[in-house]
């Protein structure tokens, strides 16, 4: 057991710094009605995210999983993934809503307590992407539940997602610049 600990202590820190001002990283499109500042301020300290796979091709899932590795380390901003929509503040929906996932998605939306933010991640979730107009797909997430933000990209890089999330909460410039 002790060799593991030595190995851990020896490996260098590799968490990337998130700087407030690099413009190309944040790629966010606000849709639907606006989220009040009070709600954003509430979630700035701690945000519970529930990821819903509405028929996605797992491209966006890989990126979202990468968010919690030591490189991007989403936890340092107080954002953590939760198991049940009841505990969630934000719903990250990926994938063009497949026909039989529509009802489940709507139920998840119902089960999430107010105030909540819905973010469609990836082109499929935004408007169906490459699967647009197919008989098995209901199109974008907004055809089932109201969407507040969209993160384009097929799939968007983890950094884009991370910075976009901070941008949604307008936490980028206030969040401590984690360079160490």
């Amino acid at each position: 057991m002790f060799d593991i600990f030595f190995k851990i202590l020896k490996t260098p820190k590799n968490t990337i710094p998130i700087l407030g001002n690099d413009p190309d990283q944040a790629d966010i499109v606000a849709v639907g009605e606006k989220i009040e500042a009070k709600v954003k301020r509430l979630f700035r300290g701690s945000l519970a995210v529930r990821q819903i796979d509405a028929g996605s091709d797992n491209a966006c899932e890989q990126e979202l999983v990468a968010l919690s590795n030591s490189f991007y380390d989403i936890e340092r901003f107080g954002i953590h993934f939760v198991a049940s929509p009841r505990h969630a503040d934000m719903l990250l929906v990926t994938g063009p809503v497949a026909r039989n996932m529509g009802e489940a998605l709507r139920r998840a939306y119902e089960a999430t307590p107010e105030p909540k933010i819905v973010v469609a991640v990836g082109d499929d979730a935004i408007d169906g992407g490459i699967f647009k107009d197919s008989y098995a797909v209901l199109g974008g997430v907004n055809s089932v539940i109201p969407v507040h933000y969209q993160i384009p990209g097929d799939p968007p890089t983890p950094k884009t997602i991370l910075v976009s999330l901070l941008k949604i909460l307008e936490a980028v410039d206030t969040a401590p610049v984690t360079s160490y």
Partner: protein
Amino acid sequence: MLEIIASPISFFILLELFLIGAAGSLVLRKNDASANVWSSFFAIAGSLWGLLFASAILISGQALSFVAGTSPFPLLSLAMHIDMLSALFIFIISLIALFCSIYGIGYVKHFYKKYNIGTLGFFYHLFIAGMVLVVTASNGIFFLIAWEIMSVASYFLVVYDRNDENNVKAGFLYLVMTHVGTAFIIAAFLLLYKYTGSFDFEVIKSAVTFIPSSIKNTIFVLSMVGFGVKAGIIPFHIWLPAAHPAAPSHISALMSGVMIKTGVFMMMRLFLDILQPAPVWWGLVVLFVGATSSLLGVLYALTEHDIKRLLAYHSIENIGIILLGLGSALTFSSLGMLPLALLSLVAALFHTVNHAIFKSLLFLSAGSVINQMHTRNMEEYGGLIKYMPHTAFFFLIGSMAISALPPFNGFFSEWLTFQSLFQGIIALDSSARWVFILAAGALAFTGGLALTCFVKAFGATFLARPRSAEVSHAKESSFPLLAAMGALAALSLLFGLFSGPVTLFLETIGKSFSIFQSAPSLLSLPRGHVLTVGSGFASVSGLAFLVLFTVAIFIVVWIIRSAINKKQKIKIGATWDCGTDLTSRMEITATGFARSIVLIFKGVLKPSIQHEIEYHDAETRYMPKSRTVILGVRDVHQAYFYRPLHKVVATLAEQTKNIQSGNINTYISYIFIALLIVLFATL
């Protein structure tokens, strides 16, 4: 004033009330309603008078012994001796009988057209009168007569609902087992008579030195088996989970709340009072029996999904806990540590009182649930809390009390039993200490498993969604049922809060035993409510716990509700289960809940599992149409002890059958041979 109440005449009035009630309900048996009113009125009057009489004796503290008239037979004298211990038991009997009779007024209504209410009233009164006589009789034969009245009356009450086949079978099993037990008791009394020359307990007590020790040990074993069958300790318990559920609910509450205590009462009277200078191994045997009964009782309760059988198994568990107290009292008294013996006796008495209260509460609330649901199978309940909120609340209080959760009375008697076991671990050495350590371990595990079992019972019955259509038209139980349950729930809380004064009062009762006359007391009550054992070794206060608890709840609610969270709204949604539609088959059932523990203890419980898969067509066996899983638990005692016994008895009976050859001459030759043998034997 006390002398008038605590006098032989008032005891006769008590018996008279019950006998009039019995006779009256027989006379009025044609009209159900009036029979019910008559029997309930006299039952309530009788139990109220019993409460008055018992508390008068308890307060005045002087024992009462008298002979009720001359007896036709030489050995039988209708002698009664009511000391503090029997007064306490009369108090318990009449207390529980009072609430069961109140409950009975409403409950018996659903028997109206089906059975004869008069006979129910008759046997009900006989049953209570029998129990009162059992705890007061001080002559062996008179005691056996009372014991027989009690057993036979309770047999007829068990088979009262005779349309159901297995009720009658259960009643038969109960009758056979009780009478096997009575046979052992008679053997013990005969041995006592042989060596002390009389059946009177007082005379036996004074002449106990004449009994050689080997005979005394056989008497101990015989009475342990005899009263053990009635108390339902483990090897002899198989009638209890069969008989108690069969009886109507207020009768099974009375039976398992009070009747099995008469067995414990006689054990206390015999071992601690009459056969007093007892060897050490007696106490250790009682302790061992108590530990196994409590542990196995709760394990078998976990496998049950019939609500009344579950409660019956819990009676066995609680009797085990009482025997733990009694066993440690016996061991300490034989080792001369009288203060410790007094402490554990008080623990046993306190748990007897508590168990009577919360067990009858549980049986009554289970009865009103069965009354609405017409089945005892917990798998068909579910969601009853929305239809029967008050019954659910009382069942919750009962289950909290029985799983020894602090503000209620169950905790304080179990706490006292723990203290007596801890004192045993400190004071004793070598083998006795190991029995105490194992007993304390058994008690600890029993507490945990009892909690699990009652979460299962309450959860499967009252919470989540209805698992059968019957639930939707269940109505809340009527007023007398709720009144009885409410009073018992309040009592169980009161006995918890004022456990300090109650324990000290029980100690004065303990001191009425001849051996504890001079024993210094380990219990003290500083500041009026803090019950301390042995100058600071351990102390607890029910009152303080409840006050601190309620204050904490109010602070928390006030802070959360008003200070932080004024504007948040509550939205009623559907239960979250990953988006699929939720059917009532997906929630956990009683068997599912306990399955993990049953598998963990599979060595003891021997669970069996059977898969049956039905295919669309038998040859291809690819497309299973339906799959049924049958989960069962083999009853070890039945399989390894009672069935072989039954086989042996059956073969013996078969052999003796061919004596019946049908030829008169052979019969007369038997007579002739018998005559010769007798002649030879006697001359």
